[in-house]
């Protein structure tokens, strides 16, 4: 009989398809796991709605649960429950170590250009906060592009959601 702990364990081994340094559990997209009569129900809360990795994540979770000998049901939660605040501290450190600046905490009000252009964003390479917004958008919907004036390194900054 499969337990919820076993399911969490296998899900925490699945890498994010686009940023494989962190797992789906570290990314915070697994909201709940319930096991009933050999059926495993996972509440999956997507990151960005247009993210092409969502399907890959869903299929990978289903496959790993089947490998445990249980029938998966992946319930996609179309609500506001995912936030970049759900990325675990370990996940954030792994992101930073790979050159992705982790997202700033979510605030009560929506982000503004003034905030994005402020010096509150730290370079993941040298730690300087003398960084400049180059583009609100980047290679995937979840990232912006910044440039560090201290070490002259361009880097990707996670958007706060």
């Amino acid at each position: 009989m499969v337990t919820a702990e076993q399911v969490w364990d296998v899900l925490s081994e699945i890498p994010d398809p686009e940023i494989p340094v962190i797992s789906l559990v570290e990314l915070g997209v697994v909201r709940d796991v319930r096991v009933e009569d050999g059926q495993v129900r996972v509440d999956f809360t997507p990151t960005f709605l247009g993210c092409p990795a969502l399907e890959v994540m869903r299929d990978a979770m289903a496959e790993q649960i089947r490998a445990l000998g249980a029938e998966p049901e992946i319930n996609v939660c179309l609500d506001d429950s995912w936030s970049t605040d759900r990325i675990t501290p370990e996940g954030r450190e792994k992101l930073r170590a790979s050159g992705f600046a982790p997202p700033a905490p979510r605030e009560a009000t929506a982000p503004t250009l003034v905030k994005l252009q402020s010096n509150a964003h730290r370079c993941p390479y040298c730690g300087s906060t003398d960084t400049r917004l180059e583009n609100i958008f980047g290679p995937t919907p979840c990232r912006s592009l910044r440039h560090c004036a201290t070490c002259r390194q361009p880097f990707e900054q996670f958007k706060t959601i």
Partner: protein
Amino acid sequence: MNELEQKLILEIADDELVLGWRDSEWTGIAPMLEEDVAFSSIAQNEIGHARALYELVARELGTTADELAFDRSPDEYRCAPIVELRLLDWAQTIARHYLYEEADAIRLERLKRSDDPEIAGLAAKIDREEAYHRIHAQMWFDRLQGEPRFAAALAELRPQAAVLLDSELRGAHTPELPELWNEMTMVRRSQPAGTKW
């Protein structure tokens, strides 16, 4: 979700799908690399929003998001004419982007206050992504403000933006929609029903 809400969600989904398609036409040919990246990302987000909104209605109607998005005839779409236009002029593109985001923010605020927790929840999620579109649109508005070409584009498109917030004004389409529909549904129509991607 009542019938009125279903209708409203479909209108917004159609707007987002068609605009996402039009925005994606800048991929590779925008005036600068940063905007190539920005419009590609915005397009991806809008189509993602369309999909989630179709999904919500599809659950109610016992159908699928793909069927709603691609299996209707062009005259069954409820999108506003402003999103159908193939704009190859940057000033007009930014004018539409600005006007669209302005109207979209208003209707998302309304949806966030819906009594239906599914509608309110999805609207809140979409709004967090749209916040970045609004910053982008505002940045360009500030940059182009005072330019005659941009002022003319805004004046031309502003009356059409009113349709985005009024269901009663919807139903008419531009002659550009059938051709767009043809492109949008081509892959889907070329595959036998039940094909899995």
